[in-house]
């Protein structure tokens, strides 16, 4: 018969035949068939535990109906299910009565009130009365179990969701059931808080108000909330979110479950940094430097600020201009700036990356992989940043796949990473020497070599350390391309919409639609009228040129090179020397505070448009609130400037911009506005074509470290001094002060006590820092986080060096 599909079974639910996937849980099959079975503990992204017993239904497999938990019973051919039988109803009513026996019923003062599964199910399935006249369980009222999450044990119904999440999904089993039976409670170990990067997810999946988020507590009642779906742009993962506001203020983000990206999870940085959008520190009017006092910034009107900016751009001339940044922008904003730079200012000096990424041509030319590909590959080869710190949800996905045995993760890195608990092999290499180590493995009789050569491979490639140049990653990519031609790539780039910015041509030598500058599409030629023929400078080049006086006007598109560029000295010289620095930003950052003209822009939650994640997946952003003051979208500023520069970008709205992108960008052809507005875009629309080629340069091996120095390794931490974190009051305290980690024998050799202050000397700078012994490091290396409050490793780094060494001395 045509309707017997393999791996499909047919079950009868409440009299109707339902097709289900063999092995799938009955509750999931019922969900898809539109039959709702009440539940508390079941969560489709976690293993079933069958604890709450709320999902009991009558299941008949031929031996008569029996009450079975539908979250634990796999569907089987011929199974007959009654979700409304007398026994089922009685069980549901009974379970709810039991749950309420010890529940405080403080709904009116509970954050969850109004969106509480316990409350809702009590209305729908409950007994309506309680016969419980005894004293309820009592616990100390909400206790903070971390800086971000509070736990009210009286409300807890012990569904095991948060504890399962912590253990199974996050891999941070820091909350657990304690005690037994009627005294069971969820708790942390004394003095070991639930300081997981993913703690906020537990608040979202708690079916009652037992777990609440400090940044949201008592902020709003669910019925005052207004919600849209959007995409997180905190990092380049592109997690799907629900953005909620109350009275034009962002109050909460929730993870939205999409299969291809985040499975409903968010990291705490992405979840809670809405506070930055609401910040009092937001720039709301343009600022210009006081001509009479260099140290002063004066509030300005848009007209004069834009006129000044246009004048500085005109003065500098095409070659004297450099545009840095753009990965904070939406695709449409990025396109507008790309078009402004090329067709009106006529420069190719523009770069969305800050010297901490990979060449755009390389990114565009590598055979692409998706996150799902990685989760199913025989091997995921990670040669890049610590994913747990920099692409936290990618880490979560890989962890999930690895712990379920769907893939094996192999990591090559100079320092230990947060992925080590689940990687199959962590190969420790010298800084800058990943390619050498990989090469040795591939040419050995190691089983791994065979598996890499014969099995499917997804390589996650990015910059492992900010203290080594991109040559190291380029060499790794080159080696994988040559030796493992079947491998596909995920490029681990930093910052929100960096991939979208590159796709829109915010990089020297590449045009919108992943085409080379000498190969514009005819549509682009027609519409733009002019494109430079020579490849321009990247960020390092622009900063060097500015430091040398060759670039006179620098435009910072939401970029803060003083904090984010690996070489702070170079960035400082460039900003110092440039005659005019124009900054488009949400805040006064280290760099924008030094600018001459500051144009305030809209922030996350205030803009619509699209964003593109590291896979090349385009998804929709939705504006939720109206922006403060007179701030403007970046694309509008571009059109205004164009007009003042004597041109016209002919861009009138985000939608119209997208229509133009679809027309001129070959890789995006067919991704119409209609598709973007459709349901399809929830999962994101994957764009993988590219015509860019990359010619691998020959790279040199890094110099051998001398006996005195320590090779510096520097990566980012999730909780760092980045702008949105610093501007979110709940998150700012989570960023720790920087410490330099060194192997204990090195410290001993130098006569330094772990925990004492030392003098750190590099070719760039000499500074005092605390040094701490860390046995997990290789000898001869020193690890310093890149950008912690008050201090950045970029003070020590020379961007032109392949690797960077430091020396340390006792004070």
């Amino acid at each position, binding site marked *: 018969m045509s309707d017997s599909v393999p791996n499909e079974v047919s079950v009868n639910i409440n009299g109707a035949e339902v097709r289900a996937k063999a092995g799938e849980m009955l509750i999931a099959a019922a969900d898809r068939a539109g039959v709702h079975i009440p539940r508390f503990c079941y969560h489709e992204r976690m293993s079933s535990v069958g604890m709450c017993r709320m999902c009991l239904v009558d299941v008949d497999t031929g031996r008569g109906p029996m009450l079975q938990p539908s979250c634990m019973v796999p569907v089987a051919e011929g199974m007959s299910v009654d979700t409304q039988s007398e026994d089922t109803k009685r069980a549901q009513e009974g379970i709810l009565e039991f749950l309420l026996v010890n529940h405080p019923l403080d709904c009116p003062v509970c954050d969850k009130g109004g969106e509480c599964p316990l409350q809702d199910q009590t209305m729908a399935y409950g007994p309506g009365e309680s016969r419980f006249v005894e004293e309820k369980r009592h616990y100390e009222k909400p206790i903070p179990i971390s800086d971000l999450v509070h736990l009210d044990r009286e409300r807890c119904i012990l569904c095991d969701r948060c504890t399962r999440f912590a253990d199974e999904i996050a891999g941070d089993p820091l909350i657990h059931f*304690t005690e037994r039976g009627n005294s069971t409670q969820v708790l942390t170990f004394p003095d070991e808080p639930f300081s997981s990067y993913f703690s906020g997810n537990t608040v979202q999946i708690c079916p009652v108000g037992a777990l609440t988020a400090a940044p949201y507590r008592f902020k709003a009642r669910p019925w005052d909330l207004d919600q849209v779906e959007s995409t997180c742009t905190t990092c380049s993962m592109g997690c799907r979110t629900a953005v909620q506001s109350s009275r034009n203020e962002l109050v909460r983000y929730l993870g939205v479950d999409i299969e291809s990206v985040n499975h409903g999870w968010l990291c705490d940085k992405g979840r809670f940094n809405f506070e930055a959008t609401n910040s009092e520190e937001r720039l709301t009017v343009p600022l210009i430097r006081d001509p009479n006092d260099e140290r002063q910034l004066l509030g300005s009107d848009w007209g004069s600020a834009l006129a000044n900016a246009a004048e500085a751009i005109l003065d500098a001339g095409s070659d004297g201009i450099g545009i840095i940044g753009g990965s904070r922008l939406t695709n449409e904003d990025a396109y507008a700036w790309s078009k402004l730079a090329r067709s009106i200012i006529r420069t190719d000096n523009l770069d969305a990356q800050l010297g901490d990424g990979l060449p755009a041509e390389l990114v565009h030319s590598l055979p692409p992989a998706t996150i799902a590909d990685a989760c199913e590959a025989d091997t995921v080869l990670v040669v890049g940043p610590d994913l747990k710190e920099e692409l936290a949800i990618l880490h979560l996905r890989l962890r999930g796949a690895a712990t379920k045995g769907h893939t094996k993760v192999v990591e090559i890195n100079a320092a230990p990473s947060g992925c080590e608990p689940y990687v199959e092999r962590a190969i420790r290499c010298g800084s800058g020497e990943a390619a050498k180590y990989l090469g040795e493995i591939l040419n050995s009789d190691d089983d791994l070599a065979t598996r890499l050569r014969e099995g499917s491979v997804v390589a996650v490639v990015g910059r492992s350390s900010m203290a080594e140049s991109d040559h190291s990653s380029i060499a790794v990519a080159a080696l994988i391309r040559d030796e493992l031609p079947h491998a596909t790539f995920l490029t681990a780039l930093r910052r929100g919409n960096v991939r979208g910015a590159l796709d829109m041509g915010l990089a020297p030598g590449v045009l919108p639609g992943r085409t080379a500058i000498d190969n514009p599409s005819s549509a682009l030629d027609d519409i733009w009228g002019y494109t430079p023929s020579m490849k321009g400078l990247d960020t390092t080049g622009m900063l060097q040129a500015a430091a040398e006086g060759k670039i006179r006007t620098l435009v910072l598109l939401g970029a803060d090179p003083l904090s984010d560029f690996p070489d702070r000295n170079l960035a400082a010289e460039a900003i110092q020397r440039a005659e005019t620095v124009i900054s488009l930003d949400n805040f006064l950052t280290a760099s924008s505070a030094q600018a001459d003209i500051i144009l305030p822009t809209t922030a996350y939650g205030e803009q619509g448009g699209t964003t593109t994640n590291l896979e090349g997946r385009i998804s929709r952003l939705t504006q939720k609130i109206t922006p403060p003051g007179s701030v403007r979208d970046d694309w509008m500023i571009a059109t205004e400037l164009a007009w003042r520069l004597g041109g016209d970008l002919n861009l009138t709205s985000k939608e119209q911009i997208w229509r133009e992108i679809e027309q001129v960008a070959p890789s995006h052809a067919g991704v119409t506005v209609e598709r973007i507005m459709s349901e399809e875009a929830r999962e994101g629309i994957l764009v993988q074509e590219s015509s860019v080629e990359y010619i691998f340069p020959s790279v040199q091996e890094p110099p051998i470290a001398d006996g005195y120095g320590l090779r510096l390794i520097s990566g980012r931490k999730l909780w760092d001094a980045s702008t949105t974190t610093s501007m979110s009051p709940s998150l700012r305290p989570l960023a720790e002060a920087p410490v330099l980690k060194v192997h204990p024998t090195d410290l001993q050799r130098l006569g330094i006590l772990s925990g004492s202050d030392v003098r750190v000397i590099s070719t760039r700078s000499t500074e005092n820092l605390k040094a701490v012994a860390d046995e997990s490091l290789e000898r001869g290396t020193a690890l310093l986080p890149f950008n912690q409050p008050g201090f950045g490793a970029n003070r020590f780094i020379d961007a032109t060096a392949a690797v960077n060494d430091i020396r340390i001395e006792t004070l």
Partner: protein
Amino acid sequence: MSFFSDENTRLAEEIIKRYPKARSAMIPLLHLAQEQEGWVTEAAMAEIAELVGTSSAEVLGTCSFYEMFKREPVGKYLINICTTMSCALMGAADLMQHAEKALGVKSGGTTEDGMFTLEGAECQAACTEAPCLQVNYRHRYRVTADEFDAMLAELSTPDPGVPEHGVLSQIRQHIPEKNTVGALPPEEVNAPPVWLNTEEDQS
């Protein structure tokens, strides 16, 4: 500073080696910790977490599930009077009343001199010998009020023959190196054991 004494650290390692997965040694190590200190301290739980490769919260979760692990100091002798059905039918309530009076503490309490902790316990698998009790998990059968008093007197002597709380079996299992098979993680065993397939067996 490590929690376990050197000798116990060595024992802990020996115990862990017996199991295909280190985490299985969690309860034995908690017993070892309780044997060392008389109760399970936070430092002990944190160290066990490291030894078996999990978080302290997980160790606390396991530890607090089981009645025998005390997370606060108890008396040198823990007296558990059984209160389940068979003993209750045979006078456990009277025995408990007597014990409370004799010790001057309520069930759950510890005498001021730190010698005795009294607890009501559940069935001790000695139901035919009701009412019964245990002193540091060593049974006393058909206990009368007089016998209870005599027992207290005996336990108050310097060497009453009952080890201090925390010590269970005074004989340890020792698996000799020379003929141990050794525990392998289950992932590393993919074939049936040899004796299922040897030629001798076929013949």
